[in-house]
């Protein structure tokens, strides 16, 4: 048991902290994660920021050097994520590329695909979005109906995807499509790369619970892409996507901890402000302590995960424990922050305390126990795969 960071890692942290302080986009300072209200400007600023972050050595930290990564470990990745969260840095526009497509390519892509696509992810030349869920394939993801039929040297794709975040600003979509109807539902699926500009592809923005339009529906009508756009073996898409979804559930969402800590700090300032007096109210004190304990235990879980990853272990279904834990903890945090607002909770927008951050949070964090596998799906995974209880 050794939970200390090495002197080199401490120096890495100090360097990252000072680089971030000097380079954060001016628009973001002030402790709120929201960018300018003009989405196009916001995207421009985010791309520029992420590009500089990568050039400075603070992105793709544990990716191999030969593909442009930093060749460091998950521990350094955790350190950077903690520092980014601490500084309230912008969220990753390029999340799907960095956290899904990159790992999928490393796991299942051809050498040619890796050489061509990974540098474009790192340089922000290709923004990726994820085309997995469908209206009839939510928790039961393997029921996807979108089809890809091979015609000559092309796949012809038809269907509809849902909850595709940042589709409007993306260049490519990674699509989970049915390529063989004769196989059982988990076996006939493939992962196919589809350019957003393709003929027959339509993006329709979808306003979410907060009123923002980060989501979209994506429609495919006889969209043609070359057969070489498949990633991994044909009909192996479920297995490949499954391993990546495990990543999505826990291991690569480590940056959340830094963001949650930043939210907690703001919430604490809210609590001690004399107007609300939450810090003197024993009921609120108990809740603050409860949430702080859970937040800190989430950090312990992350330290354990990175130490296991750095030791070369595969995380697998354990990621479900982490996903279940952080998503429910964050909702508890949001509920407390909202309750601490008192009457101001009924108001909304920039003019309210912390620019309306906590009113937005309680709405926004509903998705966290739903996306990337609902809490109920996570519990099934824990029960069936980790406890070996029989399938229902």
């Amino acid at each position, binding site marked *: *048991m*050794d*939970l*200390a*960071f090495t002197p080199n*890692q401490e120096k890495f942290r100090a360097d990252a902290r000072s680089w971030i302080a000097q380079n954060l986009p001016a628009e973001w300072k*002030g*402790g*709120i994660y929201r960018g300018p209200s003009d989405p196009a400007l916001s995207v421009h600023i985010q791309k520029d920021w992420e590009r500089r972050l990568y050039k400075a050595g603070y992105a793709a930290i544990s990716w191999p050097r030969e593909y442009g990564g930093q060749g460091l470990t998950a*521990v350094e990745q955790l350190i950077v994520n903690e520092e980014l969260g601490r500084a309230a840095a912008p969220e990753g526009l390029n999340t799907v590329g960095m956290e899904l497509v990159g790992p999928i390519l490393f796991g299942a892509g051809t050498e040619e695909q890796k050489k061509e696509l990974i540098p474009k992810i790192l340089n922000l030349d290709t923004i990726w979005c994820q085309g997995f869920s469908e209206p009839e394939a939510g928790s039961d993801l393997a029921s996807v109906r979108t089809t890809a039929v091979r015609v000559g040297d092309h796949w012809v794709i038809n269907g509809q995807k849902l909850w595709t975040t940042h589709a409007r600003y993306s260049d490519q979509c990674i699509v989970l499509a049915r390529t063989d109807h004769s196989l059982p539902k988990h076996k006939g699926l493939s992962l196919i790369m589809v350019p957003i500009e393709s003929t027959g592809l339509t993006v329709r923005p979808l306003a979410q619970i907060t009123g923002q339009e980060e989501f979209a529906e994506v429609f495919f009508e006889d969209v043609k892409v070359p057969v070489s756009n498949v990633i991994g073996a044909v009909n192996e898409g479920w297995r490949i996507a499954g391993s990546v979804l495990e990543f999505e559930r826990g291991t690569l969402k480590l940056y959340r901890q830094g963001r949650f800590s930043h939210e907690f700090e*703001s919430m*604490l*300032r*809210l*609590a*001690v*402000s004399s107007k609300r007096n939450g*810090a003197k109210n*024993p009921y609120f*004190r*108990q809740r*603050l*302590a*409860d949430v*702080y*304990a*859970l937040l*800190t*235990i989430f950090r*312990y*879980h992350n*330290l*354990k995960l*990175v*130490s*296991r990853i*750095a*030791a070369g272990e595969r995380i697998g279904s354990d990621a479900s*424990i982490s996903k*279940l*834990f952080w998503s429910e903890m964050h909702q508890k945090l949001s509920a407390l922050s909202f309750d601490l607002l008192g009457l101001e909770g009924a108001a909304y927008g920039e003019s309210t*305390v*912390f*620019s309306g*951050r906590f009113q937005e949070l309680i709405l926004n964090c509903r998705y966290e126990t739903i996306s990337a596998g609902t809490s*109920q799906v*996570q*519990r*099934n995974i*824990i*029960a*069936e795969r*980790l*406890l*070996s*209880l*029989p*399938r*229902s």
Partner: protein
Amino acid sequence: MQFSLNAEDTLLVDSVRGQFQELFPFSAVQQFADQLEIEDARHEVAADIGIYGVCAGESAGGLDLGALEALLVTLEAGRNLVPLPVSEMIAATAALSQSHVDLTGQLIKGRLSATVTWYDCVVATQTSDGWSLSGLLDAVPWAAQSDYLLLPARPSQDGCARDAFLVRLDDPSVELISNRGLDLTCPVARVRINSLLVRESDRLSGAATRLRNLVAICCAAEMLGAAERAFEMTVAYLKVRRQFGQVIGSFQSLKHIAANDMASIESMRVAIQYAGWALDTAADDAEMAVAIAMSFISGSARTVIENCIQLHGGIAYTWKFGLHLFYRRILRCAVTAGSVELHREAIASLLIDSVIDSGYSEG
């Protein structure tokens, strides 16, 4: 960064678990619970494993290991419901091994016994040649069965306990009001101390916090161990018990309870291991880490064992089946190691004081 046990610690766990299983099979624990008697020889048997001196100095015959190893041992004691003051003896020998070498040696060998309390404390008044202690201590584990008691004392009714004192429990100024323990594997007693005179050499200056932290996380580890073992029994039961023509573990409503419990147990484990490491390295956040582990485990271990009872159904409600022994152990530890509310208040004080100290503003 290595968030896992090293080879020596893994070996320690395996060895202690094996010996506890052999010495205290469930039938023996149940028998103890029915008779409520501890044989003196039992201490010596446990002493042979070498566990009482885990944290004591080598010169006193201890192993000179850390809080992490202490909690690994007491976790195993909790798993096996070992009917001995394992946490208390470990904390006592750790506190005494520098100042009371001979006594520590006797404790480690199991020839004498000591217990510890920290929830209540007495008032210490300085006299011409020592100290005079007075006060009432509730629910002191093993008080009627032990030779010595280590307890915190404060200088006045309102002050904070800083020092710990060693007292003999057979002193005429010490009155024991022995109660039945809720935890049938751990008798407790109310201890009234009336102007007990203690020598200066039996004052452990500034030791109260260290003593409290060690005994608290040892008790938390007992809770985790008891919850973990009861949960393993429950998962096994879910796979064999049949109703409605199928094993009950295939019902989603029960699976989801079990999944929550498994996640809870993992969270308890990282919390206590972090706290042990923080104490051993005197980390800046050690005090906070202990409070976090205590508050979380006191609440979660209780939820897990209550779920275990529910998942078993009627059989768990019977005396003979014995699951109640795990419940009783956890309830008792959660009380004597400090309630969820108490530890949360400690977290709140640490948190809020730091914010007020650094100045604050709304964004």
